[in-house]
């Protein structure tokens, strides 16, 4: 990796069991599309088995954690690897704040209703990423 390279590592839970798993995963792709040069998406599966490239990225970059459901598995993973996240998001907090209901949505495929929460999670994540990047820039000038 380039020594001058600075990115924010985004660690979503990317689970499969719940509707929010799909929301977190799709939000991750949207975050990458919106900030392609500033983020690296981490795979929770690879990190859980300590795949060296992912562990290196986790250690190297500030991490934004996105937890989907109550066990906060992405936070657990970060803690397990000894990394303190620069920021954490919890999908339920964003759903409550934006008053977005996803009742009736299915984890195997979202409709526009579910995508509204995906958009909201991605929007909040991008705000956090911009803040982390600004913090880094202003701290090194």
């Amino acid at each position: 990796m380039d020594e001058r390279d600075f990115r924010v590592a985004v660690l979503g839970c990317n689970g499969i069991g719940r509707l929010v798993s799909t929301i977190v995963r799709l939000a991750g792709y949207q975050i990458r599309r919106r900030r392609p040069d500033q983020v690296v998406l981490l795979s929770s599966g690879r990190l859980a088995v300590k795949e060296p490239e992912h562990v290196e990225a986790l250690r190297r970059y500030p991490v934004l954690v996105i937890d989907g459901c109550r066990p906060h598995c992405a936070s657990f993973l970060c803690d397990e690897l000894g990394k303190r996240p620069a920021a954490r998001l919890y999908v339920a907090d964003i759903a409550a704040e934006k008053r977005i209901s996803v009742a009736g949505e299915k984890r195997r495929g979202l409709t526009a209703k579910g995508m509204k929460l995906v958009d909201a999670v991605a929007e909040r994540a991008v705000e956090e990423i911009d803040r982390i990047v600004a913090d880094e820039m202003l701290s090194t000038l």
Partner: protein
Amino acid sequence: MAEKVCLQPCLGLRKEAVLGRQALYVVHEDLLPEETVLGCGPALNANVQEDVDFINLYPVLSVEACELDCAAKLVKKKGRSAARTVRITDLVRELNIDFSALPEEDIAADDPAVQAVARRIAEHVGELLAG
């Protein structure tokens, strides 16, 4: 003879993982709802009891997106071994799926490729159940 099979996908972000993930929803929700449980990797890693129970109670079919075999490694990390491992890359070849034609990030569950992979995985489940 096993009562159910635990489907344990890799849950990566690449297209192969998305194809596998969608196929497992089809297997678990449509084809074999009574014969399968769907294991969630991050939850298993975080020791969520339900997911720990799944790998302790049932034979595990790990469904991998690549040669890293992260799902099988995670099961091993938690003290068990996958009874069988299938790789989506192998199934794509075996089933002559036009992989390049599939979208990158989200593949509809009714896509013929998803359905074909699901049916093949269901056959693996059937073999594991038969012992």
